[in-house]
């Protein structure tokens, strides 16, 4: 392999490895923008991955799989919403519960699907003439449909959050729910809505792993990607564009480790596998150190909203 083609393949792999993290990060981003911290991303992704896989096997179509993953992701996220929004439970603990529950649930449902081939996976479909642009083509435009969809989702979400009226209301609900409530916006309903929408996106992230990236089902196949997505939302300062950059950065670290292994670098694989996790800590630390610890999350993030406390 020429040097250039290695570089291209690493960059292209960064995009595919970053895509599941990107979907999950966007899901968590929109949830946190509404003021709800959901630490269940890892569990939601696993539930999405397994239900997507099962539905794809049952129906023979990866599209039904995707739909099932979204439905399942939204459904388990709704549990978190019910607990934290309606019952005002501790958001940290509820999210952890969701991760543990999702891990167990996916293991239970997926046991008989381990090692099974998927009848139809999301396949690479070069994007017309764009795919032939030197360097950019193979890196960005020789992927599957879900990668292309994420290219559209990032600007769409950025536009929605910063440039539309519902986006403004979303931010208000996350920054100051009492004020939004006083203005007549349905804080509880909106929060539920965004928690479910965020869960659906995390479900897509999981389905990307089981229906495009792997494509197969393995217990705990997310391997911490959900948590990396949570960290990424902080790194992204709750901005979709920064989430995109961050996801590919992590995808790159992932891909680099794998490629170093293939090239036979004399570092034990265990240490290469540690890289994404250590990199997450490093990136968060750099961000916090640079800002002097003053990273400003949405004002009401993690706080249950209670009308009586107004």
């Amino acid at each position: 392999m020429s040097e250039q083609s290695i570089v291209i393949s690493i960059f292209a792999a960064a995009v595919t490895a970053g895509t599941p993290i990107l979907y999950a990060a966007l899901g968590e981003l929109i949830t946190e923008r509404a003021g709800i911290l959901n630490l269940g991303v890892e569990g939601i992704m696993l539930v999405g991955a397994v239900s997507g896989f099962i539905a794809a096997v049952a129906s023979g179509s990866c599209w039904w799989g995707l739909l099932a993953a979204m439905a399942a992701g939204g459904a388990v996220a709704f549990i978190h919403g019910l607990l934290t929004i309606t019952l005002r439970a501790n958001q940290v603990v509820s999210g952890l519960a969701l991760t543990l529950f999702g891990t167990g649930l996916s293991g239970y449902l997926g046991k008989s699907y381990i090692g099974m081939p998927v009848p139809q996976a999301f396949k690479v479909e070069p994007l017309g003439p764009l795919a032939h642009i030197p360097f950019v083509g193979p890196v960005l435009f020789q992927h599957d449909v879900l990668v292309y969809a994420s290219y559209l989702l990032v600007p769409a979400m950025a536009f929605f959050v910063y440039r539309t009226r519902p986006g403004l209301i979303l931010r208000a609900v996350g920054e100051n729910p009492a004020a939004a409530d006083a203005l007549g916006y349905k804080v509880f309903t909106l929060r539920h809505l965004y928690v479910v929408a965020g869960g659906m996106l995390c479900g897509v992230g999981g389905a990307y792993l089981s229906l495009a990236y792997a494509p197969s089902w393995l217990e705990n196949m997310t391997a911490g990607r959900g948590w990396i997505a949570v960290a990424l939302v902080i790194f992204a300062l709750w901005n979709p564009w920064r989430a995109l950059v961050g996801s590919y950065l992590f995808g790159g670290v992932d891909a680099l480790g794998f490629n170093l292994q293939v090239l036979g670098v004399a570092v034990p694989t265990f240490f290469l596998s540690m890289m994404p996790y250590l990199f997450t800590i490093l990136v968060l630390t750099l961000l916090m150190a640079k800002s002097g610890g003053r990273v400003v999350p949405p004002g009401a993030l993690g706080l249950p909203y209670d009308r009586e406390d107004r």
Partner: protein
Amino acid sequence: MPFRFEKRLAPTPFMTVAVPVASVALALLFCAVFLALTGRHPLELYMAMAEGALGSAYGLTETTVKAIPLMLCGLGIALAFRMQLWNIGAEGQLYLGALAATWLPLTFPGLPAIVMLPAMVVLGMAAGALWALGPAYLRVKWRVNEIITTLMLNYVGILLVNYFVYGPWRDPKGFNFPLTAQFPPAALLPTFGDTRIHAGLVLALALVALFLVIFRNSRWGYEIKVIGASERAARYAGMDIKRNMFLVMALSGAICGLAGMAEVSGIAGRLQPGLSPGYGYTAIIVAWLARLNPVAIVLVAGLFGVLQVGGYIVQTHGVPASVAAMIQGAILFFVIGGEMFTGYRLVFTGRKGAAATDE
């Protein structure tokens, strides 16, 4: 029907016990419905789990064996949670404790038990503490979110252990299995009779007593509680928050490290991958379900030991062991959902907008 929640002036003692118990029952019911929907017989399954975990001397000792690491990690986690420090890294701290404790018998197999065991305890606790101090430092220095850092270090810790058992520490006489050599007898924790229940239980119960004193009678326990309730109030009262963060995280990690030491020295007698089936995560549920109360942690760890053993048992019925994790997660859901009902009462308001009619 329209409803709202009305704050109770004080939670009644009856409710503080009844609600968690009802929550566990509801969680089991919820899972039963789910199991039935996926084509299993829930009642049969639950009976098999209970029978397997409690119905024989073997089951009871296995349940106790599984409860020991849950107790230890649960105590460590509860300490940190009391200060609103979210140490999610018990799993990694457990692995690090096991790793450090293993080093001694592999390097100096000839040491007598009187030196070996205490030294292994110290090493395990030190390694667990160290693994928790990194996140504590980042939290104190730059407010880096400790949930994420402790969690990331779980993955790193497990990979580190795998590196050693697959690499430099692999037993040359082990037929190429990823295991270290068997520890000499001096490095094994004593067991009760010929059961697998080991002295880790004594250590855990001693810690429970210690924690009771710390939480109930000591100034330090009070400081932890105040800092957890309100950092600002603690600062006004002149409490050293940073010092307490380091102390609490170190001790929390040390106890989880001790759990790891007890697992290698009391159960396996060697270091191996997959040392813990997620004790560090399950212990989070244990700690919260016990409302961070040391005595309650013993009871809840016992209950979760039953679930853990039951999970293995039902595998023989063709049901994946992860059913235990699913039930445990569901229990936590219902327990935190139920907390609302201890502090509040549900009031049905009749027609929307109508005033509450009771009292």
